């Protein structure tokens, strides 16, 4: 186990160094840049020159890269070009928003997806199974932003079941502790704020959950069907074991392995999906930060740090997935 973890950590460092270099040079090869974005239409050539010098973009690219590496090693990601705040502050403000949304989405996806997939397999060929297949197909095919707008149009306009956007109602008194608004409300006993935040979370989380939910249902269904065909199930059945025991101990447990893998891979998809979902719901998390940093101001420092963070999250989640393999399937531990 220790070897697995340490190997993964080395992989992480190598990945991050490679990514950092790639991102640094890629960003600088793009047309336009922070100077252009910061200056708008009104700047004189004189101001352009001043800003280029002030930002150090007049120096050779290798000098800029060296300065950047030195900063990263010392944990200094610089300040956001757009807001002037330290990058770490900008990211740590947006991070909880996205994690809160992604967690809610993954809870919905797993909580509904595994039982649905299991039931579809168990009642193979029956109405429930067919309905599940059709609904999941729609779930996978429907573009997130379209679904988002659709849900908003149905449930926020006219009938006002849910709020159209944001993480909490404007002007709500909420004390931030962790940045997870639902949790913060519980911690500070501002239950109104917590409930309000949860109310705001429903539509974005449902939107974001659609694709992972559909995938989890399908994988679970296929996997359970595979396991049901295995000899050991027939053996267990023949031995006269009660079917709830077979289901729990043999079918579900063995069928879960590919599902866990998919959940790991879906983390990346969740982050990508968050970009669209957050835009639709004005969510203010990492997805919003990424789009703002690319299209608005070419916010190099924020982008660089964000890509590093995304890579780190991806590697860590997959490490957790691998470790949970070992828990679910003892054979992995032996290997």
């Amino acid at each position, binding site marked *: 186990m220790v070897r697995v973890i340490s190997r993964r950590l080395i992989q992480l460092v190598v990945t991050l160094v490679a990514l950092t270099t790639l991102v640094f040079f890629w960003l600088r090869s793009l047309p*336009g840049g922070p100077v252009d974005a910061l200056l708008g239409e009104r700047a004189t050539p004189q101001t352009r020159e001043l800003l280029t010098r002030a930002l150090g973009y007049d120096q050779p690219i290798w000098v800029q890269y060296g300065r950047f590496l030195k900063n990263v090693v010392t944990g200094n990601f610089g300040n956001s070009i757009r*807001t*002037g705040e330290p990058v770490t502050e900008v990211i740590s403000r947006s991070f909880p928003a996205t994690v809160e949304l992604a967690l809610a989405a993954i809870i919905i996806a797993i909580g509904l997806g595994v039982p649905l997939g299991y039931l579809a397999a168990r009642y193979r060929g029956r109405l429930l199974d067919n309905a599940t297949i059709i609904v999941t197909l729609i779930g996978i095919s429907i573009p997130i932003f379209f679904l988002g707008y659709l849900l908003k149009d149905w449930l926020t306009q006219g009938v006002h079941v849910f709020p159209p956007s944001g993480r909490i109602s404007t002007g709500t008194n909420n004390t931030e502790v962790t940045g997870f608004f639902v949790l913060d409300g519980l911690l500070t006993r501002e239950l109104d704020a917590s409930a309000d935040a949860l109310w705001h979370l429903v539509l974005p989380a449902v939107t974001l959950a659609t694709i992972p939910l559909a995938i989890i249902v399908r994988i679970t269904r296929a996997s359970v069907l595979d396991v049901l065909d295995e000899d050991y199930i027939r053996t267990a059945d023949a031995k006269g074991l009660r079917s709830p025991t077979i289901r729990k101990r043999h079918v579900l447990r063995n069928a879960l392995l590919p599902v866990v893998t998919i959940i790991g891979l879906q983390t990346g998809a969740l982050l990508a999906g968050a970009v669209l979902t957050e835009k639709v719901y004005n969510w203010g998390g990492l997805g919003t930060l990424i789009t703002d940093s690319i299209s608005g101001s070419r916010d190099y*420092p924020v982008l660089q740090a964000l890509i590093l963070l995304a890579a780190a999250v991806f590697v860590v989640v997959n490490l957790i997935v691998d470790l949970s393999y070992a828990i679910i399937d003892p054979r992995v531990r032996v290997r």
Partner: protein
Amino acid sequence: MRATRMRATRLVAAGAVAALMIGAAGCAESDRDGGDEGSSASGGTFIFAGAGDPKNFDPIFNDDGESFRPIRQIYDTLVTHKPGTAELVGGLAESWENDPSGKVWTFKLRQGVKFHDGTPLDAAAVCANFDRWYNMKGEAAQSQMIYYTDVFGGFAGNPDALYDNCKAQDPSTAVLTLKRYKGAFPGAFALTAFSIASPEAMKKYDANTVTQNGDSFSYSAFANEHPTGTGAFVFGGWNKSTGEITLNKNPDFWGDKAKVDKMIIKIIKDENTRKQELRAGTVQAIDFPAPADRKALAGEGYKVLDRPAFNILYLGINQKNNPKLKDFRVRQAIAYALNRAQLVQTKGPGGAKVADQFLPDTVVGYAGDVQKYEYDVNKAKQLLSEAGATGLTLNFYYPTEVSRPYMPNPQEIFTVLANDLQAAGIKVNGVPRPWNGGFKDDVQQFGKHDLHMLGWTGDYNDPGNFVGTFFGRAKAEFGDDAMTDMFDAIGKADATVDPAGKKAAFEQVNRDLAAKWLPAVPIWHAPPALATAKNVEGLVPSPLTAEEFNTVSLTK
């Protein structure tokens, strides 16, 4: 046993979620009730949905509309505009005058005005602001003072700098001396970037410290947390997690006190979401509703308020890359080929109108009798043939990933213009470029294009701010280095001190732009709109998008 415990845990969890959901629904209900109770003829909270983040709240370091919106509520300028117009009226200065040389400006200040920190506004405070700007140290800070560099030419030690000194003649008289006359004044004194801040607060919160860290800057506590002006609202905070800027009523404001107790500017970048928030009743006003939504919103009873158009969209012609474009007849042919009336009708936001010169009719120097280019495709063909330019092929650059007040839908406008040109026999090679990812560089810095679409929203009421900005000097955008007549005429008009003479000179410039030079073709003036809920009263749309919200009240 284990199974039972798990089942119990699940039940508790499900129950907790259900309880929270019910609580949430209840809370939503009570929120809406609360909102209704708050709406009365005065008082309450006015929530305005803006379209982007501000940068900070120190006026001098900003140049964008989203930063200026809160800044305008917190601070005042010496000179300002009559609400709803671009006409200059007194702000912190009750009156102002300049001497015959045009270099010395004397401001008579309003009496009894106090900054939000309780310190008095006097001539010394005004001069402290001018001195601060001129003496700003460090490239980091100076590079962020876009308007100051543009208007005042530079900083202490720079021979181009316009500023000489500012003296407090007495507590209510500030005398500003410039090194030479500049036509931008007095209009430029009304620029939000030149708002007057409390010298005490700037000192206390270290306003001048702009430090560079890596690729960017960090601003002072004054700029971020303690902006202190004399305006109708006092800064209450900026919650970046929720994207809300809170402004509280200033009970000691010198002018008409705010009617609402509190104003919240909520940042919602997506125009569709802004509209949905307005419909859901969670905000009371939104900026820049999509042109396509205006009719629907108006039909549902929302108020769609047009700002008088203070902008221009033009088709730029770069004379450098294709020698044919140096021929005046070819440029005229392009102008005749464009069916601008139809474009306005099909693609223009409501209230847009065809432009026949490069400034709106509310600006001094607008001439009523310029040569107009009515749509005439045969005339265009004939001119092209006379100039030996049949079969002309032009690279037409247009921006993507952007929407500007004067150009809400660049791709659609491009398609219509390109079709018109093709109908007249000009082959168009469309080149889309992301706004910040190449368009501005390619067009304004490198001049790679033959044709392009761009525009401008005026900063203050001055013709130099429009035609001077575009055609006052050789620019890569137009590749017009040889048009020295045009540069000289604009330079001369801008340097005329006598107001009547200046007006006449700019009128002639506008006539010549159409009849002699035609470096670009003016397309339209498009009013950017605001939309508000039915219960919002007193919001006066400003041509300069410089709305003051102290007049806004909420009725039942």
